[in-house]
């Protein structure tokens, strides 16, 4: 076989592989949306779940997912921001820094179920927080921290060295340079990173089944006192999220319409993540234009 012919065959095969992969991936997305979107309705998105009967919704789970997401982001963002600033702006290139980077990398590669089990052991059992939103938020924080730190550090890296030199030359301290010069310039890409990591946190389930729990007690949406047990804001109540709900009803299967509910929930998750993705792109571009007057 001459090499020209070989070339043609190989390239044809590569076209085939790429086509097949696109087909698989599109079929996947198509299946989720086609089977899930017909289930969606106002009732489905707002009604509480029913354990043994048909026609339940995912209202409580949806609320829990967002509440947990916001809490987890509120805890993890300041920590990740501080860590990234220290790593990129202050840390010298020595063995301590290398060790710390290795530790962060290890944390990011830990299976999320291990992070969840640690959360169970430490927050639920040791600190006696029980299966609660708070335990779940901490577990999600651990899951989120390394990824967010890395993405913020990458954002800081994109800012030119001249900006730092400019700040220091004006007599600003390093910290002032970071807060007044570097961070404003890095806001668009930091925000993109935050939104993308929000998407990951939103769909996480393995870290939550033994921290935030697998039950969703009914909520009274008229009661906004965080100390009442039926208040949606109470951080000490068990809170099953949407992703955990999908897992739960599929592995226990006592709900007569488990499949329809899971299809609907999957579609909601995917649509939410698509929205996060598009917002990330749009906000990043828009803010960049706004802040740099480019």
């Amino acid at each position, binding site marked *: 076989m001459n090499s020209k012919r070989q070339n043609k065959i190989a390239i044809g095969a590569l076209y085939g592989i790429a086509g097949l992969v696109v087909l698989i991936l599109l079929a996947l997305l198509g299946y989720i949306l086609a089977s899930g979107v017909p289930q969606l309705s106002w009732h489905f998105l707002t009604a509480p779940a029913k354990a043994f009967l048909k026609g339940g919704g995912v209202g409580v789970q949806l609320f829990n997912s967002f509440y947990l997401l916001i809490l987890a982001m509120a805890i993890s963002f300041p*920590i990740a921001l501080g*860590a990234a600033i220290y790593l990129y702006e202050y840390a010298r290139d020595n063995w301590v820094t290398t060790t710390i980077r290795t530790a962060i990398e290890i944390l990011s590669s830990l299976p999320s*179920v291990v*992070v969840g089990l640690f959360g169970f052991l430490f927050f639920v059992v040791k600190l006696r927080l029980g299966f609660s939103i708070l335990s779940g938020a901490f577990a999600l924080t651990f899951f989120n921290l390394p990824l967010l730190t890395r993405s913020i550090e990458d954002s800081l890296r994109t800012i030119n060295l001249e900006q730092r030199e400019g700040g220091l030359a004006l007599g600003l301290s390093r910290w002032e340079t970071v807060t007044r010069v570097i961070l404003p310039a890095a806001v668009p890409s930091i925000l993109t990173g935050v939104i993308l990591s929000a998407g990951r946190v939103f769909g996480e389930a393995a870290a939550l089944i033994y921290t935030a729990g697998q039950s969703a007690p009914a909520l009274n949406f008229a009661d906004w006192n965080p100390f009442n047990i039926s208040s949606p804001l109470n951080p000490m109540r068990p809170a099953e999220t949407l992703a955990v709900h999908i897992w739960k009803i599929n*592995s226990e299967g006592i709900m007569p319409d488990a499949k329809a509910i899971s299809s609907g929930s999957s579609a909601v998750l995917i649509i939410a993540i698509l929205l*996060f993705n598009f917002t990330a792109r749009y906000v990043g571009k828009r803010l960049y234009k706004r802040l740099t007057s480019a």
Partner: protein
Amino acid sequence: MKTKTTQQLEQQLKRHSKAAKLEIWGRTVSLTALLLIVAVVVAIIGFVASKGIATFTSNHVNLWDFLTGKSWNPNITDANGKPEVGALPMIVGSFLITILSAIVATPFAIGTAVFMNEISPNKGAKILQPVTELLVGIPSVVYGFIGLSVVVPTTRAIFGGSGFGILSGTCVLFVMILPTVTSMSADALKSVPRYYREASLALGATQWQTIYKVVLRAATPGLMTAVVFGMARAFGEALAVQMVIGNAALMPNSLVSPSSTLTSVLTTGIGNTVMGSLQNNALWSLALVLLLMSLVFNLIIRLIGRKGRLQ
């Protein structure tokens, strides 16, 4: 000798300015945040390890029996009065499913990455890249649900039996790690300098010869990292696998018989055991195995990175 006024003056001059105070404050706060993350890592490893070795220290299970025993039944003691905590079925299940899904995913992922980078960068950037990026973000429970509603019935129709098992798990994990491995492979190919390709084409090599003999060779460390990364993800994946594998803690005797992995036993078991009991400790030992394996994957990635840099 200093008078009182010069002392005051000295104090005034030596005192930190407002900006200097702010600087110290900022530095301390950001360092604290960083150390907090390190503390979290240490705490996770410490806690899981101390729980995981309790099976061997306080329940006196032989480590070798644990790793090679074939029957997992912590509630029952065997003829010698020892609890049956052989983790081999789960360890084999985890490795089998990881290796199989990596074997299936690698050619597809690298082929697609080559297509995106070398053959049709235009279509790659327009169609393939956004699609893969999007799929990296799909939650694993969704993959599990699709596995349950599409893959398992298909396997059942073709091979008979229940449809749950290693094969279904492999299919789900294949699709799940495909986007990750593809986008990392594409990054590896992107970092091959352009003049390598030009030199090869100038020597009269065809496009395929250039890809096969130059680009793929030069990108090998990066491609290996991508595959190992995918394997690490497959090994640690819990819920998607748990939903389709069948959850029978038996040695997998065929690819379509129900079996289990480390993660699937953990997710189903930990809530049904009492803290501190042998049954519970044995599960923590499985978690420890999982943790150690993830450290090993990390090490492999590092070694590949170091070797790749030297060349």
